[in-house]
């Protein structure tokens, strides 16, 4: 069976190559297809189109017409941004950069024929494919919860209506109620994100519902910027937030979305809002394309962001195992620039400079109290390795924290312009 299929594909590939030989030598432009229009995919599309000046045919496949950024979606929950301000259209990528933006779901990748198929029934042939689908959830990682319960217990870990739902639930909480978060195990999208979200929820509750409580069920022993968050919570929201780590049963839990109960190590709590952030893996299309490894994420070549499974495919952002780099929009944007340069070099012969990667994550703890962590990275043969880094310090003065927050606003304007033109 396998043999038959292979020999059949071999024949059709040879035929296809023979038939397409003339147009390839002629004027046909090399084709790049990009699956996913987030911080990785949109940036890659824009850079390839911009820097190849029309020499490469770029198709971007993204289901949503308005992309809501996960970064800053916590600030929307906290009331620091309005919803429209985190939404972005693909209009400029189409009109100013000539990118073929297709609003459809990619449902299959045939690596033999180098074709992507979509739910809408279309097929897109590629010379180089970029896969940037973000994350999906690991089924069964939170006992009692599955995706059908997302309206009772929202994850809000992909921005959009889920974010709006969680904000509405927080604002409608009964006086003195309990907000519970099931925090995810490593590795997951946006390491400081759950704790920034807790800060934003606490900010809202302090203003509207000061006797309410926040409970974090956390399977991890420690988390990103922990000292900074814990200092901030003590300072701004004293007595409001309780975190149950693995020592106290944070790994042994289940939820019941019908009754709004959370069972933590045998002790059952009834809660008012429950934000379930499940364990994560690469977006489904990466798995379907056979690009994922044992842990559900995609191994990549550190110097190029090529898939370890297929040299004609690059994988970006949260879907990858990128060595020391965290899963963040900033990282995905950084991956995209390296991949875009490599793709152009392969297809048009432009120069491929050595890869440099970087990341910075800003988080807001309370009004004008911003913190950040960041690092620079370089590829080694095995992995993307950290070169240098920094993190905000506990006890910093208010002026510096305010500047850090204002800097994050500048970064948001910068990266969204870098993604969407």
């Amino acid at each position, binding site marked *: 069976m396998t043999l038959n299929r292979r020999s059949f594909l071999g024949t059709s590939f040879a035929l296809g190559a023979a038939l397409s030989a003339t147009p390839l030598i002629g004027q046909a432009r090399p084709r790049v297809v990009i699956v996913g229009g987030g911080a990785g995919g949109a940036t890659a599309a824009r850079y390839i189109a911009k820097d190849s000046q029309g020499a490469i045919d770029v198709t971007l496949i993204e289901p949503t017409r308005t992309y809501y950024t996960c970064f800053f979606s916590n600030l929307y929950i906290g009331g620091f941004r309005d919803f429209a301000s985190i939404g972005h259209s693909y209009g400029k990528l189409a009109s100013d950069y000539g990118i073929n933006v297709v609003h459809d779901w990619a449902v299959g990748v045939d690596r033999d024929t180098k074709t992507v198929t979509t739910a809408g029934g279309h097929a897109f042939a590629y010379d180089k494919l970029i896969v940037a689908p973000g994350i999906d959830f690991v089924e069964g990682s939170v006992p009692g919860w599955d995706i059908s319960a997302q309206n009772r217990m929202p994850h809000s870990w992909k921005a959009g209506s889920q974010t709006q739902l969680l904000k509405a639930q927080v604002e409608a909480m009964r006086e003195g109620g309990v907000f519970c978060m099931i925090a995810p195990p490593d590795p997951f999208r946006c390491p400081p994100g759950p704790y920034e979200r807790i800060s934003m929820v606490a900010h809202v509750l302090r203003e509207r519902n000061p006797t309410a409580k926040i409970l974090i069920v956390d399977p991890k022993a420690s988390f990103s910027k922990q000292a900074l968050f814990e200092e901030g919570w003590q300072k701004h929201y004293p007595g409001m937030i309780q975190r149950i780590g693995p020592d106290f049963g944070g790994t042994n839990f289940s939820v019941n979305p019908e009754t709004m109960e959370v069972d933590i190590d045998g002790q059952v709590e009834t809660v008012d809002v429950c934000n379930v952030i499940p364990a994560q893996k690469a977006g489904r299309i990466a798995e379907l394309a056979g690009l994922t490894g044992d842990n559900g994420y995609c191994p990549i070549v550190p110097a190029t962001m090529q898939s370890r499974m297929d040299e004609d495919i690059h994988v970006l952002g949260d879907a990858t195992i990128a060595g020391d780099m965290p899963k963040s929009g900033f990282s995905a944007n950084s991956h995209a620039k390296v991949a875009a340069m490599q793709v152009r070099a392969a297809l048009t012969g432009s120069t491929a400079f050595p890869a440099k990667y970087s990341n910075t994550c800003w988080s807001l703890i309370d009004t004008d109290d911003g913190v950040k962590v960041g690092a620079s990275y370089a590829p080694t043969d095995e992995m993307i390795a950290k070169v240098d880094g920094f993190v905000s310090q506990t006890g910093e003065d208010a002026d510096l924290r305010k500047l850090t927050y204002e800097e994050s606003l*500048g970064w948001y304007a910068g990266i969204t*312009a870098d993604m969407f033109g």
Partner: protein
Amino acid sequence: MREALFLGLALALSGVGQAHAQTRAEAIGDAERGAEIWVFCSGCHQIGPGAEIGIGPPLNGIFGRRAGAISDFPYSRSMTRMGRDGLTWTLETLDAYIENPRVLVSGTRMSFDGLEDPGERADLLAFLRDFSDRPSNIPEAAPTARADLPMLSEETLAIVGDTAYGEYLSSECTTCHQRDGSDQGIPSIVLWPQRDFVLAMHAYKQKLRPHPVMQMMAGRLSDEEIAALAAYFGSLTP
């Protein structure tokens, strides 16, 4: 008859206004204290005899000047538009601009958060006022050399940057800095004189300038890479 009366009244009123303005001009603020505040400006702006275009335009004769009027200076589109629309620098408009540059000119390249204290603004304006239309009374220019300037050899400063390489490297900068040069919370880095750009990056690399993100970014750039970035960002059109 009616028109003549009205005109007379208007003239009388404007006469009052002028007298009032003169009184204010004489007591704008303390120019000596303003000279101390000027250190916030002198990294980018020159003033006094021989003042030239730096990262920002020279500020001799700023009072009464149309916004965006120095012909060789690459202003932001916003500033050029404001000038075309009639923005002229007076005590009032400069005061508003210095208080919060981006409120008055949203896309300005001027990377300055503003002076909140009205007294400090008045002192700075008094200092600036001394360099406008009182030519007999211009003091020596404030020293513009700053303590955070790095030690660099002439060879390093003389490196001619590769613009194409700079364009690639620039993609790491534009995650935060706006390519169009506007300052939306993170400073503008486009259209700086190349020497100033190189000096600033080496100052971060040598950790003379304090910002941790920039120290990290500059820390791994070679002399050639810094020159390439300076060449690229210096070559953009506003």
